[in-house]
């Protein structure tokens, strides 16, 4: 693993290795002074071409807990949006002498483009979300949250509810859960289902409610109001009625099942307010696990870099 661009870059072994490190870094995060000096003197750059607070903050924190210098180029302050081409960006990054970059972009494949050009310079690239393509660290932290609860993925049944077609979280989640041997189901109206989705061998449910008692984990996706217009739906009211997870739905789920969401939640849309208090709702645990997972990913990419030298 020289870069983390897609869940497909990871073997099952890689994933468990990341979990192992994440679990050790969790210990670090719980210390009074949650920092270790492993990456002192190293620099990573976060390039966020799309507004995001939590993912960028999570990566920044993860780097800093490892004593790595993290420099943020964000959407609002960056000159990169002012007409600079991607190749210009590459050249700039090379001159800045960083060790790795973390990129989020509105267009699928941009992290791959950067990785292609930065590879020979031994600079790693982490995909922090590229358009409607992938978000591999989210998938890792979702899987890790599940792993901590169940210790094993075999025979776990996972339901993802929402915009399967445009959600990079859904895309990466499906890849990782299938790789780990889970049984994955999705539920959404057809306007949210990719064409030819039957080729994935994933069961599409129009109405998930009848089968709720069979799932170990339900992942509600964010309705991406900002990414594409709402014309895929008739109304928020109807979406919430059909696909919003409510207290009644939690009541039908297993006692030890988990309810996850990549955040930030549109309350009253994909989740109703009354699910937050339920102990099976682990949205905030996901945030904590996200830092540990990202520490592990950054750490392991540096380790790989070192071995390659």
């Amino acid at each position: 693993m020289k870069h983390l661009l897609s869940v497909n870059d990871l073997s099952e072994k890689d994933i468990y290795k990341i979990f192992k490190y994440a679990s050790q870094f969790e210990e670090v995060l719980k210390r009074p002074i949650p920092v270790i000096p492993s990456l002192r003197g190293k620099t990573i750059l976060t390039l966020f071409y799309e507004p995001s607070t939590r993912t960028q903050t999570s990566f920044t924190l993860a780097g800093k807990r490892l004593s790595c210098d993290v420099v943020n180029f964000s959407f609002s302050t960056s000159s990169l949006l002012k007409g600079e081409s991607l190749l210009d960006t590459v050249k700039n990054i090379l001159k800045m002498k960083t060790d790795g970059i973390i990129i989020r972009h509105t267009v699928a494949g941009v992290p791959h483009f950067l990785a292609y050009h930065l590879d020979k310079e031994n600079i790693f690239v982490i995909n922090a979300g590229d358009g409607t393509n992938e978000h591999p660290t989210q998938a890792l932290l979702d899987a890790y949250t599940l792993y901590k609860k169940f210790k094993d993925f075999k025979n776990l049944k996972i339901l993802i509810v929402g915009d399967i077609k445009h959600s990079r979280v859904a895309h990466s989640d499906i890849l990782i859960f299938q790789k780990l041997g889970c049984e994955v189901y999705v539920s959404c109206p057809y306007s949210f289902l990719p064409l030819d989705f039957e080729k994935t061998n994933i069961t599409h449910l129009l109405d998930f409610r009848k089968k709720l008692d069979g799932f170990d984990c339900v992942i509600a996706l964010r309705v991406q109001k900002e990414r594409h217009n709402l014309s895929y739906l008739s109304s928020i009211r109807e979406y919430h009625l059909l696909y919003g997870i409510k207290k009644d739905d939690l009541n039908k789920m297993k006692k030890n099942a988990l309810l996850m969401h990549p955040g930030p939640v549109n309350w009253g849309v994909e989740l109703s307010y009354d699910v937050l208090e339920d102990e099976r709702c682990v949205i905030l645990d996901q945030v904590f696990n996200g830092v540990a997972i990202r520490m592990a990913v950054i750490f392991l990419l540096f380790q790989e870099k070192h071995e390659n030298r």
Partner: protein
Amino acid sequence: MKIDNLSEYLLLKNGTLIDLDKKEKKEVDILIKEGSIEKIAKGIEKKDKFKIIDIKGCYIFPGLIDLHTHLRIPGREDEETIETGTKAAIAGGFTRICCMPNTEPPLDNESLITYLLTENKKYNYCNLYPVACATKKREGKELCDYYLLRNAGAIAISDDGSPISSSQILRLVLEYSKTFDLPYFSHCEDRELSQGVINEGFLSYKLGLRGIPDISETIFAFRDILIANYVKSKIHLCHISSKKTIEVLRFLKERNYEFTCETAPHYFTLTENDIQNYNTNYKVNPPLKKEEDKEEIKKALKEGLIEVIASDHAPHLSQEKEQDFENAPFGIIGLETSFLLSYEELVLKGNLTIFELLEKFITNPAKILGIEINKIKEGKEAEMVIFSPKEKFIYREDKIYSKSKNTPFLNKEFNCRIKTVIKNNKIFYL
């Protein structure tokens, strides 16, 4: 129209039952007890308390289904009401009708669907199946709440009266409607192309009227079927009227594209040449076409390419219809004449058998809507039409049950007529 509640026992003597399954006619007596068919046999014995109607020489078949009625409710109760509209349906042999959503306000929310169904229950002449809007206000921009509409009783969706001009919105409509298994009824018209009042050609030039190119329908029919098949959603094309469209439909059918379509009786009984003296009772949308189009429609009906005949019943006030050809609204009433016209034009002239015709009025519409009909079998609810294939009938203004009288068939002499209809425990004598 005399309407009676069914007596405890009703015996229909000597009728000719049209069996749609076996495709055979047989002379039988039918005994109806408390609204259900008790017995079908030859020579059922009379008993004292039986009410008896001798229907010798008449056909008996299940109630007809109309996929395309403009009931005008809510908003234009001056043109049609539930009472007059459903009576007109019964008078035409229809026991079930789909009403179109281009009302004022349009049927784009579930409360209007509930309203229509509640109102219809007050009369309960025939079953009403509301077709809800595909997009809000029929503007072709935002999807309606199909789940809520379906739960309220909508049977299909359509922006009828208008096409959905944006291909992307149509795709989303079809994907979202597939989620709730609601068929989309397509009004095929390229609005940018069809800015006229009659079929474009030498006649429109001669009359000095703005013409609508026949390809306006063809282009959208082709596009709509392609999009529906791309996302594997159900599509039904309304009021197909032109030869070119049929040629394209045939091309697609041969390549296993899935769709259904309907035509209306005026497209195989009239042509643009019938437009005399700018008579606005011949102004319909899509416009009447040429002789060759009319013949092609009959051919497509025979082939089975067109599976349904629907009335496109479109009532308008005479004050609105009786004005210049440009400004008069499109549309004619049709519930009361659709079956008679079809029988005369298609069956009596040997184009279709009575069985083939009834498929287009009963079996196929039921299939498209996904509803079960009451077959004329023992144990079934009595829902049937008694039709005389011989009796003369003149369609005079005082015989029209619809509140509006805009029809080109006024004073037409038919050589057949609907005699009696039985539905919802009522018997309607015409």
